[in-house]
């Protein structure tokens, strides 16, 4: 482009800014809000999607969710916790499946392994940093045997951790615990201290709930669960397993019934839930962005109409329609780019000051790139409309109209 035109564009932009500062400020604010909304919307949608995908352990056909229900009035218990898999709080308060009994079953090879969330215990952990600990609300996952917990090779990692008697923690716990990692200590109240031997799960923050994976052998309390995730041995029958678990549960309460759902079914329900919520998040973000763009559309129309006098005069002295389009697009690009930057700064500030300490998943690249693409598309569409406005009318009529 001709450098003279660039200088003229910049001069025109500054002139408009001086004439209509508040109009520009509003336009800019609207687009910045849209940027922030879209970034969070896209990021959350991606996070909740990846959260499901990332947490799906392999071997789904050997994975079962075994739940003990008290028969009267048990339905209400279905609507529990949002965490994927059986890591969520179990329905029913009773500790129907005792830890020792489950461990025995693994040792007798009736199943390959299990894991459950220890309830009724204090699950706060003390992170022994330099001098003082820090209390964190974390989930305590007790496991034994083959326990993938997360996708990938977590089963092997957890087996190693179990051998050495330490614990594993996930990245969310590290993130919330000021970067605590392997070789640091974790104290499970009251009293027992464990060394962190491994980090598991997705590093990128899709899994926002801090978790401590503790081997059943090292777990200092006799406890149990009403919901447990089991891996049955290859070739074993789930009916036999359910039968022995039923028998055990009947010792605790005679009104209890035991149900086993395929891992896929159990996860499937949550995938649906998470999909809906990610759709809703993305939808809300889209609505905010649409409102901001409508607002931007109105203001750019105003902007261009206020610049029409200058543009008409430039047409009169020989600016071609293409040159006029460069003027309009440059104006819009300056505004769009600056609001993109401002929006991202706002995103960073909101995340750093508030979201990070509240367990909301972090902003993702897809969120940032997606937002940039939407802003780009919006700028191109608005620009095309405004170029038409500035170019289609005869210059004589524009000059007359813009006196």
């Amino acid at each position, binding site marked *: 482009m*001709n*450098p*003279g035109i660039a200088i003229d564009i910049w*001069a025109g932009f500054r*002139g408009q800014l001086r004439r209509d500062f508040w109009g520009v400020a509003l336009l800019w604010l609207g687009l910045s809000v849209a940027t922030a909304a879209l970034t969070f919307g896209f990021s959350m949608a991606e996070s909740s999607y990846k959260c499901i995908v990332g947490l799906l352990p392999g071997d789904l056909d050997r994975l079962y969710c075994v739940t003990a229900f008290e028969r009267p009035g048990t339905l209400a218990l279905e609507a529990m916790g949002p965490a994927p898999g059986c890591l969520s709080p179990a329905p029913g308060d009773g500790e129907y499946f005792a830890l020792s009994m489950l461990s025995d079953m693994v040792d007798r090879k009736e199943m390959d392994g299990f894991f459950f969330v220890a309830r009724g215990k204090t699950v706060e952990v003390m992170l022994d940093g330099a001098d003082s600990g820090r209390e964190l609300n974390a989930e305590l996952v007790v496991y034994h045997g083959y326990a993938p917990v997360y996708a990938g090779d977590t089963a092997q990692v957890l087996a190693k951790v179990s051998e050495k008697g330490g614990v594993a923690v996930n990245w969310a716990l590290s993130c919330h615990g000021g970067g605590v990692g392997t070789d640091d200590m974790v104290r499970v109240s009251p009293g027992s201290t464990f060394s962190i031997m491994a980090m598991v799960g997705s590093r990128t923050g899709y899994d926002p709930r801090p978790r401590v994976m503790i081997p059943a052998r090292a777990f200092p309390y006799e406890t149990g669960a009403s919901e447990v995730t089991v891996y049955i041995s290859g070739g074993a029958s789930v009916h036999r397993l359910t039968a022995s678990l039923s028998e055990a549960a009947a010792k605790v309460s005679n009104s209890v019934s035991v149900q086993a759902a395929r891992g896929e079914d159990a996860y499937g329900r949550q995938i649906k839930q998470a999909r809906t919520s990610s759709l809703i998040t993305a939808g809300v973000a889209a609505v905010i962005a649409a409102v901001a763009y409508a607002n931007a559309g109105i203001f750019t129309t105003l902007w261009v109409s206020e610049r029409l006098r200058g543009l008409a005069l430039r047409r009169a002295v*020989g600016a071609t*329609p293409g040159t006029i389009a460069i003027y309009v697009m440059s104006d819009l690009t300056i505004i769009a780019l600056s609001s993109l930057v401002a929006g991202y700064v706002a995103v960073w500030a909101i995340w750093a000051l508030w979201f990070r300490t509240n367990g909301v998943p972090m902003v993702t690249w897809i969120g940032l790139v997606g937002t940039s693409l939407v802003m780009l598309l919006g700028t191109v569409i608005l620009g095309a409309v405004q170029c038409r406005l500035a170019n289609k009318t005869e210059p*004589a009529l524009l000059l007359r109209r813009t006196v």
Partner: protein
Amino acid sequence: MIGLFGVIRDYHARDTTARGLGPVSLEIPAGQAVAVVGASGAGKSTLLSTIGLLDSPTSGVYRLDGIDVSGLSEKRRSVIRRDRMGFVFQRYNLLDELTVSQNVELPLIYQGCSSSRRREAARLALDKVGLSGKGRLRAWQLSGGEQQRVAIARAVVGKPQIMLCDEPTGNLDSSTGQLIIKLLLDIHGESPNRILVVVTHNVGVARQLDRVLVMRDGLVMQDGIPQEVLAQ
């Protein structure tokens, strides 16, 4: 050479059509200085815009040096405006966000001149209109007469073949207006082939040009040398 043949400009609004100009047929040979007079609403500005390719005729043919330009695309018309036309309007002339010199340089930017050539040409043009040394001021810092002189400098800086002035003295007091007219005539005298068309209400101004067109209701009612036409 300008040639208009049965040129009509109609303005359409909803379901009514108003005639702004025409039918008008006239020729202006190279080098002629023409005054256009007539009451407000007579179609003077519309005629000027049509000649300057700022507006397209609804029907009729406009030939510029024998080439039909009535149906050209906006892009080709803008190139003709850039290379062959210079405009001076009554108002809305200069851009406040630019310096005086930048205002004058504007047509040269679109012609693709280098910045040093632009600055030199703008300086010469400003010298010619008696505004040496005012190039760095903003347009709004000048008086009305000075602003109109800047506009004239901008109109001539690209050495146009046709100069079109729509009531250039309309907003000025009569002595300043007389200076502007004298300036326009001086500039016109310097290049023998340049056409000058000036819309004016002022009979004294019209008297100084080669030819006068008297317009009413979109039509050219009289056309001739000033002595004959203005005598009536």
